[in-house]
């Protein structure tokens, strides 16, 4: 019995040590869990953010060396001023390709997600960059070729050595570096955050009224504080045979036309909207929920009443207030942070 207690005591001690160690890794100037955020889901224990790793990831993110024509970088489609989306482009270039049929999502707060892409087909941030790098209509490069170029370059072998202590650049470390930079892209300084954290900011009357509307009709999917619950849903967008959404991954009928519920942080900066970029303005998105939602296969239950479609019943004033609230989700510190920009 005594021995058992001792063992338990030691276990608790080790667990506490480990937790302390992880918390330390998670708390430096490059990555801090915001006070109003939950614990991240990324496995930081395998890849803690370091200055060298983050800066290397940033260099790679903005370097067209990852593409076959040496012209397109990650930053080409993920622009900082647009919260790392491809502002003004409904679909990324390309025709028949999977990426080519979808709108580039923001890169922000990815440490709190473990299903990436509109269909959630990628389940580890470290595996995500393989998609654009090898996709024929995006960067069109092959991984062996990228590694060859990086290993033969003047500066990268030294930078990987400094960041990871390795003498050869491998898939694992290439992806770890990119993840360190992307994990560092935390957006948590909008007016909304400052109000919630009681940092002195206050909602205007309209914003406060809009927040109420939001909590009634939107928050169960676009859940605070990340403004997504990381699930998949159908929100009544017109169906298009070319993109079956989550079904393309699971082949389950119940997943047909379900898409990842996107975060609404920085939403004013990321037009056009939806997986296919088919809605151009936030006013039109609100009109979609009020008036245009369609009875689709697998339309979410929250938009159904007794099997009939029930669109979001907002008055004109409520719609206007809702927009005012959504405007409080813009984080200007995030889009201007020089640490996130091409150097």
């Amino acid at each position, binding site marked *: 019995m005594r021995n058992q207690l001792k063992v338990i005591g030691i276990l608790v001690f080790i667990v506490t040590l480990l937790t302390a160690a992880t918390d330390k890794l998670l708390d430096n100037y490059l990555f801090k869990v915001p006070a109003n955020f939950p614990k991240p889901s990324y496995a930081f224990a395998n890849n803690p953010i370091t200055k060298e790793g983050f800066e290397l990831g940033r260099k790679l993110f903005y370097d067209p060396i990852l593409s076959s024509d040496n012209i397109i970088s990650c930053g080409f489609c993920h622009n900082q001023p647009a919260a790392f989306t491809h502002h003004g482009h409904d679909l990324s270039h390309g025709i028949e390709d999977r990426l080519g049929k979808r709108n580039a999502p923001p890169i922000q707060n990815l440490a709190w997600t473990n299903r990436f892409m509109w269909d959630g087909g990628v389940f580890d941030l470290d595996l995500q960059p393989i998609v654009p790098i090898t996709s024929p209509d995006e960067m069109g490069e092959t991984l062996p070729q990228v590694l060859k170029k990086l290993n033969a370059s003047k500066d990268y072998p030294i930078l990987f050595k400094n960041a990871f202590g390795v003498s050869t650049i491998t*898939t694992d470390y290439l992806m770890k570096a990119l993840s360190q930079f992307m994990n560092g892209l935390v957006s948590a300084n909008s007016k909304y955050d400052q109000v919630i954290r009681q940092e002195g900011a206050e909602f205007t009357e309209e914003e406060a009224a809009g927040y109420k509307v939001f909590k009634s009709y939107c928050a169960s999917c676009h859940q605070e504080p990340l403004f997504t619950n990381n699930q998949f849903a159908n929100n009544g967008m017109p169906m298009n045979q070319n993109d079956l959404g989550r079904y393309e991954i*699971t082949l389950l009928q119940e997943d047909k036309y379900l898409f990842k519920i996107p975060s609404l942080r920085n939403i004013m900066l990321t037009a056009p909207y939806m997986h296919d970029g088919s809605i151009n303005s936030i006013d039109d998105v609100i009109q979609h929920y009020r008036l245009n939602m369609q009875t689709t296969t697998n339309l979410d239950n929250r938009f159904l009443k007794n099997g009939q479609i029930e669109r979001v019943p907002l008055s004109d004033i409520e719609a206007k207030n809702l927009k005012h609230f959504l405007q409080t989700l813009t984080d200007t510190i995030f889009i201007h942070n020089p640490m996130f920009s091409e150097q």
Partner: protein
Amino acid sequence: MQSTDAVKSLAPINIQFQNMANELPITLNTGKYTNASGESFSISLLQYFVSNIELISADGKVYTVPQDSSYFLIKQANPQTQTIQLNVPEGRYAKIKFVLGIDSVRNTKPLSKRTGVLDPSSYEGAENMYWSWNSGYIFFKMEGNKITENPSVAGKKFRYHIGLFGGMDKPTLNNIKIIELDLTKKGLAKVRWGSQPTIVCTADVAKMFTGNSTITIDQFGTVMGGPTSALIANNYHQMFKHKTTIN
């Protein structure tokens, strides 16, 4: 360093895969084969994963090859890959068991656990065995052309890329196949220090066209991860046979 005892007790054995199509050995591009529906075809690319190998001795003892060293990519274009070399305890083996494909758990491991043939950067061009957009490995890949009556007209191209490991959140299509081959009829493998037996297996890839479902190139020219992949995987589940053991 392993102790001398441990080294001594493990002895070498080979498992060889001879790929066939309807009993004929495969010659890439120029060989001509016929499937169960009478379609003639040639094969330009053929490769598949063999993993998680177990050897079961005549008295029922199971030896599991250490998992990190139990992933092999058999490539028709590279004869060296068609013979797997293992070190196993001495004994008389009556059965082998392996996965055709990659087990679900390994499909979800961090990149640091995906080295060698599992490294997504280890594949050149058409030989790619990893799906980036639906994270997971391609287990079996065969490409080629239907051969038409007029030899100057190129026949329809076929591409069969079969993968899917069962999903992350809820059960989805799982095309992982477990193969068990009984060695008792064609010869036990007698593993002992100082010799190197070879278990010779055949893999008749034309089996993918027939069995529970009939697959024709005309109807299904390209199958990649859709529901039809399950029909093909169920067919090719029967493609392996034990041919002989060279002791």
